[in-house]
């Protein structure tokens, strides 16, 4: 009896952990949509075979990625790839370690050399 109880408790414990991990990995949020937008989303979900959640996630990801581009004229937005991260510190806290006897200048000169 005790063994069954322990097994059940350990299963519950694992499930709780899994939920906790899942919750930390994926933030959940409530999204209130207007009736018309909800209808459109439902229709798009039927049309594409994707869940409404999946479509909403895709739309938000795209918006977040391209939000920075809105400050540029529409004609050239397609040419710009926004910076992945803000400027922050000029120098990296974890610089690269160069192989012994090699300098960055030499590498850069070599990389910039025209093909013969």
């Amino acid at each position, binding site marked *: 009896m005790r063994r069954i109880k322990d097994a059940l408790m350990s299963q519950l414990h694992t499930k709780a952990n899994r939920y906790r991990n899942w919750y930390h990995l994926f933030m959940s949020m409530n999204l209130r949509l207007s009736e018309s937008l909800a209808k459109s989303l439902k229709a798009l979900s039927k049309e594409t075979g994707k869940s409404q959640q999946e479509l909403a996630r895709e739309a938000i990801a795209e918006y977040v990625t391209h939000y920075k581009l809105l400050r540029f004229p529409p004609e050239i937005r397609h040419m710009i*790839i926004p910076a992945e991260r*803000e*400027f922050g510190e000029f120098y990296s806290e974890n610089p690269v370690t160069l192989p012994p006897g090699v300098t960055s200048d030499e590498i850069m000169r070599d*990389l*910039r*050399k*025209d093909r013969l």
Partner: protein
Amino acid sequence: MKKIEQQICYLDSNVLISRISPERRSDLIAHYLQQGRLQGFTFFSSVLASLEVSRFLHRTNTPERTQKQFQEHKTDALAGTELVRLNSQMLTSASTFTFPHLGSLDSIHLGTAQAIGASHFLTNDKQLLRACEEVGLATSF
């Protein structure tokens, strides 16, 4: 091509690489970038710079460096820099520079800076510095 109506400072890939390379740290470049930020400049470079940073990292690769560290170095180098995709107008522009000692990659960077309407161009390369000055791009703040 419609130009960007903002103050643009173009960063050469050697400036980006100096951010992750300890022996290339230059107080002068850091000072220029700081000035540029204070004056409201947006920093741009070409997708070519992203390629050059990757090549640099591959060249300096060690067995201990993980894919995650590789990506972190690349992100550190390119942080705060918008990248411009190459197009035929930039390549045409690059082919018209008459400076005899300007390499192909250098000329692409210069052509891209001109195409997007940059007013400033930061680089550590002497040949490129001279070419920038010839075409009227400021090379310091």
